[in-house]
């Protein structure tokens, strides 16, 4: 498929960022419940 745009870097950035946000919130909830 020679005419497909080469923009995998944007895709990778979005997937990594989403994982980071979800993991950061998971860790935040763990730490807050452990402090109680």
């Amino acid at each position, binding site marked *: *498929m020679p*005419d*497909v*745009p*080469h*923009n*995998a870097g*944007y*895709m990778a*950035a*979005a*997937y990594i*960022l*989403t*994982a980071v*946000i*979800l*993991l950061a*919130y*998971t860790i935040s*909830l*763990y730490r*807050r*419940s452990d402090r*109680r």
Partner: protein
Amino acid sequence: MSLVHKGRAITLVGLALLAVDYVRALAFTPIERLQGPAQKIFYLHVPAAIWTEAAMVLVGLAGIGYLFLRDPRLDRFAAASAEVGTVFAAIVLTTGPIWGKPIWGTWWTWDARLTSTLFLFFLYVGYLLLRGAVVDPGLRARYAAVLGICGMFLVPFIHMSVYLFRTLHPQPIILKPSAPSLPGSMLATWLFSLGVFSLLYIGFVTQRYALSLDPTVESERTAGHA
């Protein structure tokens, strides 16, 4: 099993399935010919957007319920849903521009869909700040309920904005009156992704709800069920 442990278990299952979702979306779902690999951001961006909006609708419904019933559980649920909605809104507002740059040629444009979604994020932040600023629990619940109801009425406007205004943002290809306009393999991956985000919402809200309970009450409740 305490509520917080139930929430943790659901979240861990959700995160494990998110890894499966990543593999399925990146390796086993076809690349769209015109947009290229960047189109795969769709499998994260749209489910996150749906739960950003659904979370605010649930905040508003819980607010209406609280104003009628004065049940603190509804207020606690609204607070939990708002916090999780903020997290999903952050995902929408970061993955959106990353998708927009290679497809539209710009990170951001002040069109109706993007701007109203940004307003929803600000509303979430304002809601959480309001809750932090009011000390009295009764007043806090009442004020938050009213703000949550206002936020709920913003959601249909966000969904309809692509029909009401000329925008760069595409119109819905799944949540529309006619059949979804994408191949079965892409639709299956998207539905799986929506299921994963739904599980994460439930897991996060359960944990956040448990955090807002009085620890002594929570431990008594757990002991009572042991």
